[in-house]
């Protein structure tokens, strides 16, 4: 029969259309929020999703996974009396590995000796050029530069971030990437403990 294939196809469309109501209603009957709630958004990107699929940005936002990366930021530790201790040593690895070459670092020189000190005077990332590849965070040996989750950075001007604007506290980092943070802290503690043990052994030997 001519038209049978069309009808068969339409039955799929019809079912999909119907689902947009039934799914909403079933959520309502269960007294749960399908929209504007984490649970609802998670459901919409699960294997069982049916019915309305769209996440209404900006009212709703997708829940990004831990590894999500956008632009980089510099991590600082909060020292005593609120001093910002930036972890970066201005070693330059991130600037060398960055594929579009959008990291610019000014190293600090000790004015009396002229020798470099391991803190950057300034640090620029040209966010318009950054391709969000994550290499800087991946290859930084000091866990000093990390990828941010905040993707709402559209603006009317060019975005060149300087050291001031790039710095975010370690607690923020721990908040967006808890697993990575814990892993790194453990590694760091283990390393420090090993160092301390070695120093002790040396002291005992001497």
């Amino acid at each position, binding site marked *: 029969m001519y038209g049978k*294939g069309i009808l*068969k196809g339409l039955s*799929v469309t019809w079912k999909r259309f119907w689902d947009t109501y039934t799914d909403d209603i079933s959520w309502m009957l269960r007294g749960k929020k399908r929209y504007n709630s984490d649970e609802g958004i998670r459901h919409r990107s699960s294997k069982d999703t049916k019915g309305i699929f769209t996440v209404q940005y900006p009212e709703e936002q997708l829940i990004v996974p831990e590894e*999500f990366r956008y632009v980089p930021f510099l991590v600082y530790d909060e020292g005593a009396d609120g001093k910002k201790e930036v972890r970066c040593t*201005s070693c330059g*690895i991130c600037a060398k590995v960055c*594929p579009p*070459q959008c990291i610019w670092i000014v190293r600090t020189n000790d004015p009396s000796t002229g020798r470099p000190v391991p803190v950057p005077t300034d640090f*620029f990332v040209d966010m318009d050029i950054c391709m969000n*590849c994550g290499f800087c965070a991946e290859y930084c040996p000091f866990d000093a530069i990390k990828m941010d989750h905040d993707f709402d950075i559209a603006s009317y001007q060019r975005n060149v971030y300087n050291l001031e604007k790039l710095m975010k506290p370690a607690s923020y980092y721990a908040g967006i990437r808890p697993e990575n943070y814990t892993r790194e802290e453990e590694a760091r503690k283990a390393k420090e403990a090993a160092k301390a043990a070695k120093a002790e052994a040396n002291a005992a030997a001497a």
Partner: protein
Amino acid sequence: MATPVLTQTVDLAARFPGKVSADARPGYAGIIVNKENLVEVATAVRDEFGFDLLTAVTGVDYIAENKMEVVYHAYKTTGGAGLVFRVQVERVDPIEVPSLINIWPGVDFQEREAWDLYGIKFTGHPDLRRILMWEGFEGHPLRKDWKEPFFEEEVKPFKSRWPDGQHTFAENKNPFRDNLNFPKDFDPEKYVVDKEEDLYMSLERDTTKDVEGNMKTDHIVVNMGPHHPSTHGVLRVAVQLDGETIIGLKPVMGYLHRNHDKIGERNTYLQNIPYTDRLDYFNSMSNNFGYVTTVEKLMKIPVAERAEYIRVIMAELSRIQNHLIFIGMLMNDLGTMYTPSLYAFEERELVLDIFEAVSGARMMCNYFRFGGVVRDIPDFAMQKIKDLVFERLPAKTDEMERFLNENEILVARLKGIHVLNAEDAIKYSVTGPVLRATGVPYDLRRADPYSIYDRFDFDVAVRQNGDMMDNYLIRFDEIRQSLRILEQAIKQIPQGPINSQKAAYQVRVPAGEAYGRIESPKGELAFYIVSNGKPNAYRYHVRPASFVNLTAVESMCKGSKIADFVALLAMLDIVMGELDR
């Protein structure tokens, strides 16, 4: 299950004494053919030795040796290893190499590309115009002595970034208007019409002539694109029409050209991985795969076992979402606006969720590293992969088939339209699903297995008619086969490290050349890399499936209606990021 590899030694030196010589450079393979004998040898390569598929034509500029080289990679559609042959000519203009267009018409665009970017003249090529750069462009940008106006340094990393890197905007150093090199007597007022002529002339030349005795009709030229919803980006097609019938057609491309090859030669090997994401931006996982496989070949390093499986899982997921989108986009072009494509996008979103969880980005994944991958698949993502592969995707594929396959309008639009026969497809170096729809079971995962594909049990999807309908249906077959591979990969994946190498931001790549190819969702994606032992590639070339497959378009649509051409473009599954590079 291992694939038997045909072993037949090809001894060209014995067949052509004095005309060819072995390539003695360390790290190189294949033979060097004298320029005068190229056509003769190439004919024998095809007819006597059976290498019917010429996949790549690559120019290389050896400036230190004062040589230009053209490298040819020929393969057999029955599978097995390939044959590399090359010609070397003095690097003095005019650089001339005989064209192989009469032996393999598929070299058409690739020879034009080598002319455009290297200035190698292919004598005998009927339509040797620039292809990626515009007519009137000054110089040949891939030559080693060519420098762009924004030129900063030969290779990255640039010295101005560290240790005293004050940020500057590139355009401040290169004010507007000065960021292009024009030929000396260039006048922008006169430019536009000037060289367009060439295109229309070539269109005229290749037009099918009016049949004797028929009514005399006027022909009109229609320029479709570069801004046309059906061209999937900024592709322009100049079509010569007789009524509604296409009698001549020339694709015009390069609007998205950014000289990916040159950027790749500036980058260190590692830096180039994220750039490959931007080739076929629907399948960054596959692009990564192709690139790292090629570099690993050069580096001669193993890949961690678990990483091999992860790679296969990602590549096959990528194939599935690509084919779903393909179906959606084909429907869009046929006029079934958006309903099927949005259904397809739902599944794609779910696959992209997985990519995001493992790599951090949905589209520009940058997930592969030399020797493995960046990080392991987190547990929740693995669970999601299982959910999709074992439950959702098979059901949704069925639903999609139920939704569309028997639709009478769809069948009428696709069945028997744009038939491509196997012989022509091979001649035009067409690869991927388009080739397999013509009845040639040529799939690199079987024909020239890479990674661990020889461990999986799957069939090469193949259809017999070569028309649009088969091209459409074969995508479903491939999704099913990919699901089969995924099921096995998920079951077999071992625990273990995910990289065989230590993480390093610079890798050592020994001197030599490598040609690595993978079966990307769109066809053969190959990379040709020449290393001279430095941290940056000496020559980096991408052989994208979209670009080469498009070579066949002209012969495929002559005599058919313009409305069907829109569908044909969708069917070739081109993506401009890869086509224009």
